[in-house]
């Protein structure tokens, strides 16, 4: 059941979004006019999608400073910003905080529904760590011949996260038996990105001792 929060000081913005999305079966909607209330609620329960009106401003908290907080707290639920057409600068800024999309007032039901579908797809995707765990398990139990798909998935993880150590580590595990030299190279790359990556260290020691 998707949980959706809407933050805006404007009644029309809130009521429009709610009336469009409450027609989708299973959606649970909650609206906030105060950023503080929203933050409290998020601490108890994270939404599957959050709409933030960039115009919101209460004391120190503004639309943008909220986005900044979300990023610092590592909140990874999808956020969509709501804005008027003539505030393109604010939207540009918002995108620095990884919002998934923006919507300009006045918006149409179809625009809201499209964004909703996009957000739900994103929040259903396994997180990076879940994905790593899953692939690691598959490498452990892989059979000898047919693991082209597994290799592709590890590689796509590379492209999506070129600066993270885990994909290199996974690829090393994958290649360990086939080609130890490539495995060692990848483990070194992984450790270069994160010198404290223990699993990579162990694997590297093990491979080099076997040589």
């Amino acid at each position, binding site marked *: 059941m998707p949980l959706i929060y809407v933050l805006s000081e404007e*009644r*029309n913005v809130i*009521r*429009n979004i709610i*009336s*469009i999305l409450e*027609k989708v079966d299973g959606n649970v909607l909650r609206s906030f006019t105060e950023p503080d209330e929203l933050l409290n609620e998020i601490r108890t329960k994270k939404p599957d999608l959050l709409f933030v009106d960039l115009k919101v401003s209460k004391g120190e908290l503004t639309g943008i400073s909220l986005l900044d907080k979300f990023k610092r707290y590592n909140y990874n639920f999808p956020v969509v910003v709501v804005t008027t*057409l003539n505030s393109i600068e604010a939207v540009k800024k918002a995108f620095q905080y990884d919002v998934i999309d923006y919507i300009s*007032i*006045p*918006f*149409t*039901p*179809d*625009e809201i529904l499209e964004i909703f579908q996009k957000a739900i797809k994103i929040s259903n995707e396994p997180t990076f760590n879940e994905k790593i765990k899953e692939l690691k398990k598959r490498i452990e139990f892989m059979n000898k011949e047919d693991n082209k798909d597994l290799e592709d998935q590890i590689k796509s993880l590379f492209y999506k996260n070129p600066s993270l150590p885990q994909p290199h580590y996974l690829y090393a595990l994958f290649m360990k038996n086939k080609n130890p030299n490539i495995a060692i190279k990848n483990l070194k790359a992984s450790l270069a990105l994160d010198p404290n990556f223990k699993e990579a260290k162990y694997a590297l020691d093990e491979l080099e001792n076997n040589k």
Partner: protein
Amino acid sequence: MDFKIPFKKSFYYVVFGCGRLGSIIANELSAKGHSVVVIDRDEASFENLSFDFTGFTLIGEANEIEQMREAKIDKAHAVFVLTPDDNTNIMIALTVKKYFNVNNIIARVYNPKNIKTFAKYKIEIVCPTMLASNRLKKFISKGEKQ
């Protein structure tokens, strides 16, 4: 002429003119749970909208193309053209139809002579003068029969 209002899910409507007629239509569409945008050059006209109106309002010259773009008119399921000026209505309706390719349009005209112009472009109209005169004509013929 195929002006129809689809009412199953939320639709997006644009209303030009927020006078007596425009505000009634905007309130009605909003009350039925649809998204509505009303455009009028006079901010005070929005006071005609009810407290429960949940749509958006835009202040500006209704026939300006920039204004129509801001209203996302190309995404409208239907457009109501209800400013008090016939020529403005003709231009808005033709612009919506020919420039933005939206076909579901209804416009008000006061001067019955303008009905022809709209008919040529297949735009549905409502003409208060004709509505009243037809009604009154029926009244007269009823009186003659008695």
